[in-house]
């Protein structure tokens, strides 16, 4: 529907208007700042390429979040799952020197996906078998993952000279190459786009995806129709974790080549915003991730030329999300109702409005 595409842009415009007021109050020129932001994100071939590279992890984690959220499984743990995936990739990566390139890539990515899947499955199992709320378990597992990363780069995986808290670099064979050097465009984004299409097909064109969406919309009805909720919960959380973990492995393989502390600047959390802006539609994840990647990327140029703090971009991101969510409320539904004659008594509220039952 047109409105679902136009909405994020309208929200963006409104956020820009609000931020202009802030900028003007700070004595900066709003137009100059936005021009620098756009220039930094899309101003050159290199800038565009870097925006793509910065968006890539957000596509993986955004897909992870949207898949879980579609089943009303509130996976807040994409960051931890990505981290564990990265640890798995960073641990196996240095030992892949004797493999052909394609095999080494397959192994390192599979390791990342497996690591993330295990981390997601832990939360899935806790929910399915012990009825532990996944919001709590995934948040807790994030902390564990961050500390695990810190431990391995100071301990078992620390590079041989033991001078820096990083792991040994992964073998060349396991590194995703840059297609258009010096830009860092690599296979990662192509893989991410393919996975977005796959997730779309899974959700909307398969029986399993239908069961997942049914569970997300009405858990009780799903039980009445013999949808096996515990099994589905476990598998979806594992799959969600695998997507996030794969994102971590891609980051190791293509960009960072080694593990270090604070590897993720919060991709797993930004992913929640990405998924919400995309309204959980896997195909919408790509533009939504690029939007956030562009804001990240452009913020550096903004700081350089306009002397505005890059943190301001986080303010813009926050405003965009808030405004999109605000646009989702009855005012919009009412407009839609008048145009399309939609339900008047259904609790047709967006799934975003539903909070997990504590």
């Amino acid at each position, binding site marked *: 529907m047109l409105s679902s595409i136009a909405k994020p842009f309208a929200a963006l415009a409104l956020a820009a208007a609000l931020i202009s007021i802030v900028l003007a109050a700070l004595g900066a020129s709003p137009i100059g700042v936005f021009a620098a932001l756009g220039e930094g994100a899309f101003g050159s071939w290199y800038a565009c390429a870097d925006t793509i590279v910065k968006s890539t992890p957000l596509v993986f984690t955004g897909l992870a979040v949207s898949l879980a959220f579609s089943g009303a499984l509130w996976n807040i743990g994409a960051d931890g799952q990505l981290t564990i995936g990265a640890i798995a990739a960073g641990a196996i990566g240095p030992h892949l020197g004797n493999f052909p390139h394609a095999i080494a890539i397959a192994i390192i990515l599979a390791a990342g996906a497996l690591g993330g899947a295990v981390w997601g499955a832990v939360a899935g199992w806790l929910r399915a078998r012990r009825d532990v709320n996944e919001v709590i378990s995934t948040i807790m597992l994030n902390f564990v993952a961050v500390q695990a990363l810190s431990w391995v780069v100071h301990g078992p995986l620390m590079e041989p000279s033991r001078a820096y808290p990083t792991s040994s670099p992964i073998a060349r064979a396991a590194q995703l190459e840059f297609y258009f050097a010096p830009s860092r465009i690599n296979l990662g984004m192509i893989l991410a786009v393919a996975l977005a299409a796959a997730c779309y097909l899974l959700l*909307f*064109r*398969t*029986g*399993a*995806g*239908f069961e997942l*969406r*049914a569970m997300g*919309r*009405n858990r*009780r*009805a*799903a*039980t*009445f*129709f*013999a949808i096996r909720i515990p099994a589905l919960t476990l598998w979806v959380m594992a799959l969600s974790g695998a997507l996030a973990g794969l994102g971590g492995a891609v980051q190791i393989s293509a960009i960072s080549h080694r593990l270090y502390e604070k590897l993720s600047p919060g991709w797993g959390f930004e992913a929640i915003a990405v998924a919400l802006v995309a309204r959980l539609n896997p195909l919408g994840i790509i533009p939504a991730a690029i939007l956030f990647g562009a804001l990240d990327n452009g913020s550096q140029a903004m700081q350089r030329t306009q002397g505005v703090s890059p943190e301001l971009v986080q303010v813009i991101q926050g405003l965009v999300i808030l405004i999109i969510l605000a646009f989702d409320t009855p005012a919009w539904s009412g407009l839609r*109702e*008048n145009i*399309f*004659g*939609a*339900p*008047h*008594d*259904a*609790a*047709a*509220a967006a799934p975003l409005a539903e909070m997990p039952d504590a």
Partner: protein
Amino acid sequence: MLRANAITRRFGRTLALDAVDFEALPGEIHALVGENGAGKTTLMNVLAGSLAADHGEAVLDGRRLQSGSPRAALAAGIAAVHQSPMLFERMTWEENLALGGFDTGAGALDLDAVAARARSLAAKLGFEMPPAGATVENRSVAERVRLEVLRALSFNPRVLILDEPTSVLAPSELAAFLDLLRSLRADGRIVVMITHKLAEAIAVADRITVLRRGRVVARTTPADTSEAQLAGLMIGEIVTQPAASAAPPPSGAPVLLIENLTLDDRTGRRILDRLSFRVAAGEIVGIAGVDGNGQTELVEVLAGVRRPSSGKVTLHGGSSGAMAVIPQNRDLDGLILDMRLWENLILARPLREQVTSHGWLNVSRAIDLCRQLIDRFRIRAPGPETLAGALSGGNRQRLEVARAIASRPRVIVAHNICRGLDLAATADVHRAILDFASAPSGGAAVLISSDLDELLAICGRLLIISRGKIRETSPGQRDPERLGLLMAGARD
């Protein structure tokens, strides 16, 4: 005096209310009758302020009510009890009532005071409250209705509007409830009762207003009309009740055999008590009972949502797809309101399997199937892509019945299948069940209901459920009064 002047309200392309005039006087019970989708509930929502009218106004005692403000309506003295319970399931009944007008304390919440006021009001009205601290989720439907009425009354309203309040009540509870309405009338209040049960309207109302398709088609009094005439006014044609299949069923092998089914809840309370019965092919068996005697749990066990403590359910001739269950709470358990009709259809596993191959969902086949069923079962809907929530209650139920029958089960188990439905929808649903049972393939149906008339109309055999136990009635036993006593727990 409560007046509605030329109220019009539109939903998208549907005209729900078309310049409706309505009037109710102090000290009267005014019945508002009509089919599902006639606009009764919309009118109530406009009067109670939960919906704004497009045109027209509501006036109470000469003062115009602010449109679309429940708070203003309540302040003016209009309280409403909605058809679908608006209770907080996981809170206690005292906490639910504290949200009403009982809690007058400034700031601090005094639940004991709330409970005391509720009990004294309940005593005046002639019923008892649940034990202290009981959560709503474990109470029967009848108790919930009383809680809602009590919560509405806690505001001491001038006007009480009730939407289908009796649809969930058993015959034994009905008389007490109607007395409650009469005592409210005696206080000089205005009572507006929305109903499709014409006998009740005639029994209790002082005046009756009939709505059809958003218009008032008649204003009358019980003395001047009859059930048959009202039915004719409501639907524009006389629908005859389908004849009961009075002949004893073919005594073939049982399709469904239930042996010593027992269920204890977490606290060890016995919900189902060594329950046994059998259903043969081609048979429609009714299970009559007052709500809260184990029916919901029985349905949940049969649907596989709950595991019984002991006992056996045997289904001859089939796998898990051989039984289709239609749960009573169609909006919560049976349908996903914000999914499309075709998606709701393929919730049923046999239908889902029919439109998936190797895991892939064939969406266009599902839509075709849905379109066929919409035609065959006369579901009034724009098309398969409509959201289930956009359908009226009767059409939602037609969809559920269509889904159950299209799944080609050996047995259909349906719980309160016609609750809240109008005559036309009820007749449609009954006809579909009768056709299912009389088809050459010989389907069997188990109808669980608290509506004795409904069961007597279409069931060949009648069982009574009371306190989790099931008893067979003698084949000739058709006396509603006697059966009512059995439902209340009397020995045969």
